[in-house]
């Protein structure tokens, strides 16, 4: 019995690590908590009007019977009435989520700058067009194209305070393998040390330069610019 229990406990530990391409429905609680709350009933799957949700099966690397979607297969359509959350009987999908724009299913990351067509100087920006929160969750940031010095590059830029992780950008990416993809926020987001201060903000707060005069620090240019 102890052996069986230990085995199942280890298996449980493994099941907690969600594969990065697997996205939980809107309002899903953080993964360990979700697995203690989800009843594996599939009510959210049934009430999704776009049929993007499915229940994980044995053999997939996701806890058996729990709901998920894969953005490249079909993204969350961000229904304003959030029927999947309403259908959830257990609260594994948090019922306090009433504004779909506040969903945080993951975070889109423009993972590959080498293949993204906008980074190559084209005006693809399909991800930007597909974004339900265009100009908020994804903006196009203008840069000079260093290859010509004449042209501009419009870099799709995701803003983590707005992105819901719906996956529309990933779904829409025209590449054979997507350059932009929704990742779990824990994988996508960095975190500054608590003691870090942004000089330009501190200066604004103080209303004056924080250091009198000009500090001259040694120049350390990258090898490629020499």
């Amino acid at each position, binding site marked *: *019995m102890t052996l*069986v*229990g230990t085995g*199942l*406990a280890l*298996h*449980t*530990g493994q*099941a*907690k690590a969600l594969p990065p391409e697997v996205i939980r429905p809107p309002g899903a609680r953080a993964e*360990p*908590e979700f*697995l*203690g*709350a*989800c*009843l*594996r*009933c*599939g*009510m959210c*799957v*049934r*009430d999704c009007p776009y049929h993007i949700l*499915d*229940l*994980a*099966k*044995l*053999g*997939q690397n996701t*806890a*058996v*019977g729990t709901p998920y979607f894969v953005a490249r297969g079909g993204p969350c359509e961000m229904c304003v009435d959030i029927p999947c959350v309403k259908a*959830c*009987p*257990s*609260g*594994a999908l948090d*019922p306090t989520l009433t504004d779909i724009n506040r969903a945080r299913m993951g975070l889109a990351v423009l993972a590959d700058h080498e293949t993204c067509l906008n980074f190559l100087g084209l005006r693809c920006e399909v991800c930007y067009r597909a974004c339900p929160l265009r100009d908020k969750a994804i903006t196009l940031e203008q840069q000079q194209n260093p290859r010509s010095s004449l042209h501009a590059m419009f870099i799709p830029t995701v803003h983590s305070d707005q992105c819901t992780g719906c996956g529309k950008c990933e779904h829409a990416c025209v590449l054979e393998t997507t350059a932009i993809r929704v990742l779990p926020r824990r994988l996508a987001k960095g975190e500054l040390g608590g003691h870090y201060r942004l000089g330009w903000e501190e200066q604004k707060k103080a209303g004056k330069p924080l250091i009198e005069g000009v500090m001259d620090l040694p120049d350390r240019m990258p090898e490629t610019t020499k």
Partner: protein
Amino acid sequence: MKQGIGSEAIRVKGWFAAHQWLLARRATQFAVLALFLAGPWLGYWIVKGNLNYSLTLGVLPLADPYVLAQSLVAGHTPERNALVGAAVILIAYFLVGGRTYCAWVCPVNVVTDAAHWLRARLGVPGSARISRSTRYWILAMTLALALITGSISWELVNPVSMLHRGIIFGIGAGWIIIVAVFLLDLFVAGRAWCGRLCPVGAFYSAVGRFSPLRIVAVRREQCNDCADCYAVCPEPLVVKPALKGAADGIGPVILSPHCTNCGRCIDVCSRDVFAFGARFSNRGNPLAGAAEQAAAVNVS
């Protein structure tokens, strides 16, 4: 040479009467499944969900109280619908007998009954000794795991929900677990899964500990000791106290919470000894013989 189980009953009562509860049970099992499948297969959404939680006609929530118990132990407080659904199920199975779930609803019952039938047919010899109380240890283990891991661990492997959800939502590699249960019952030990290991059944045993709906050996004085009821019973230990306890002052009601109310003993008895009845049939003292019966079952 002794004839097959229930052959005397078939001769006396006719084939149909000697299989009526079995037929009713299979009909119920498949009707429950059909209700769940009418939505995804035909577009008639009478019942949505699966045995873990379902919503009937958009108003009646039903939830598996065992899964919900694990969720609670794991530290999650469920929303209202899940709690109401579990309460409805607890009350319903308290009334009709906890393990009535096992015999009349659970889809794994069909699998293990098939294994048992084939085991008898092939004459598979020997049986590994697995105590009938092992299921309670597994039940305790699953709750302990939920507490330790904060996750409903048992649902990662539970054959009951694996099969039912699998039929409705797609089973993936889950059929391996179902085949494992079948082979276990066929070759390792008779009635191993439902009768010895399954914590879902153990949980429902507890729910039905004091259920009013019982099988009663109403005409036990007519028993001719053919022993067909023992042979057909998935929990043979539950029969004896009620059937043979007259001399010891034990009432005729089968009070063991392990009885699944499957009614096969009624079917195979040519003397109509058994019938569905109430636990209060032990006149005067509704718990007469309960302790003795519990003791008899725990001896296993």
